[in-house]
């Protein structure tokens, strides 16, 4: 993979693209959360990524791993709700895998660590109608594509985004077991999970940035 300064610029660009896209999707995410939650997921994600975007200047002299870690701590410190610890805490923990830079290998380790931390924190199995349903197929697909199919990371990541999308769609017809939507019991069936959706959106923007 590319050297550190190229990676740094790519990360900064990705963060900015994600922040811009989240701004666009803010009301969409909040609307999804209105149906089966408490109508704040768009605002939560927006608040978090605004704060992150304001920090990109500091990123100039950080290693890629530190940038990801800072994104995580910034989200923890600004989001709250379920999304704050899930996104922020997992980024923070998983960033340790990037200590030696971003390679095909470390990116797989990062993805796995991220998923593990989400599951550890939130205690949600697949099929509980949460972000885990988008993350799991994405991480599995990425790992298999890189490690067994020997695909280039970018190609593998594109497949992962497709997989996440299928995960998001999978959240619609199932009943929520975790998160606020679980309080609705059977009434949650038929609605798309906001956190799975924001996970997909973020991955789409990372892919777009990487392709550029």
């Amino acid at each position, binding site marked *: 993979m590319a050297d550190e300064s190229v990676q740094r610029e790519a990360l900064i660009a990705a963060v900015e693209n994600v922040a811009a896209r989240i701004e666009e999707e803010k*009301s969409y995410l*909040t609307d999804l959360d*209105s*149906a*089966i*939650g*408490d*109508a*704040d997921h768009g*605002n*939560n994600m927006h*608040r978090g990524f605004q704060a992150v975007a304001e920090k990109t200047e500091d990123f100039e002299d950080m290693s890629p791993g530190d940038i990801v870690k800072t994104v995580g701590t910034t989200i*923890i*410190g*600004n*989001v*709250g*709700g*379920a*999304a*704050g*610890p*899930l996104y922020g*805490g997992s980024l923070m923990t998983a960033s340790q895998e990037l200590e030696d830079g971003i390679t095909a290998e470390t990116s797989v380790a990062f993805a796995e660590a991220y998923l593990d931390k989400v599951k550890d*924190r*939130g205690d949600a199995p697949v099929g509980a109608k949460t972000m885990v349903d988008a993350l799991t197929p994405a991480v599995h697909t990425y790992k298999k594509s890189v490690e067994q199919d020997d695909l280039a990371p970018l190609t593998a990541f594109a497949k992962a985004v497709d997989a996440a999308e299928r995960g998001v769609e999978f959240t619609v017809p199932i009943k929520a*077991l*975790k*998160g*606020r939507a*679980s*309080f*609705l*019991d059977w*009434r949650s069936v038929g609605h798309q999970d906001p956190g799975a959706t924001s996970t997909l959106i973020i991955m789409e923007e990372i892919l777009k940035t990487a392709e550029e």
Partner: protein
Amino acid sequence: MKKLINDPSDYVDEMLDGMVAAYPDRLRRLEGTKVLVRADGPVEGKVAVVSGGGSGHEPTHAGFIGDGMLDGAASGEVFTSPTANELDEMVQAADAGEGVLCVVKNYEGDVMNFDTAAEMADMEGVEVEQVVVNDDVAVEDSLYTSGRRGVAGTIFVHKVAGAKAAEGGSLEEVKEVAEKAIDNVRTMGMALTSCITPEKGEETFDLGEDEIELGIGIHGEPGTERTDLMSADEVAEHLTTNVLDDLEVEDGEEVVVMVNGMGGTPLSELFIVNRKVQEIVSDRGLDVWDTWVGDYMTSLDMEGCSVTVLRVDDELKELLEASVDTPALKR
């Protein structure tokens, strides 16, 4: 949206400033945070009891800061758990060296952020314990789900924990009475209307003129069931029966009843509901030791109510009766 607000994004910030401006001798805001603490805290030699969660539930949480109840309260954005960082700052500011009990309502966001904060505070050498309130009988209690929400029954937990701490109880003892209250309290709520969050600016859910939601939480989320409009008596019957059944009350037991307003319902209607609640509770052979009617834990401007029943013994009664001096509750 018609509200007495300025920029919606300043909602929480300005509300907290307005609270401190109303009670400058009682409340202090930790600079740069949305945390309020006792102006005279931390109180030497006393275990601290703190709470927190999303905003929009006023007078919960900060209205219950004061002698005999909470030492601090962290407010998140509307219906959004405070961040772990703010919770950590609260815990550290409230600690007088005797440890801190965090009263958490069972929502994944709250639980995860309080967990993280406890880890952080722990690293700074603060002794932290946590209790999680889950009084909402509308939600099925299952091992495989997030479990039940914490709702209005939390106020009783704050009260008894705060009283125990005020009388000099150890962190372990304060936690124990909080858990006793949690074990003995159940709630169920309903909504006539959705609330409107300032940021979204419109109803969270649409409800017809002849429909109501049963089994709502306190975050404007829809309930577990939508039904036709009911009379006050029918509402009281539905909520109270579910609460009492779940609590498995027995003839002759003593209870405290709370009829809590969701923010937009006038007190007069809560009394109309209370009339029937008392009837039902008495018909079950229970002895109502005390009754609380009012807006204790709200959902912004939602119209509706919840009914809470707490089973009491001598210890809980003594702690409930103990003097308390906060903006929203005095005894």
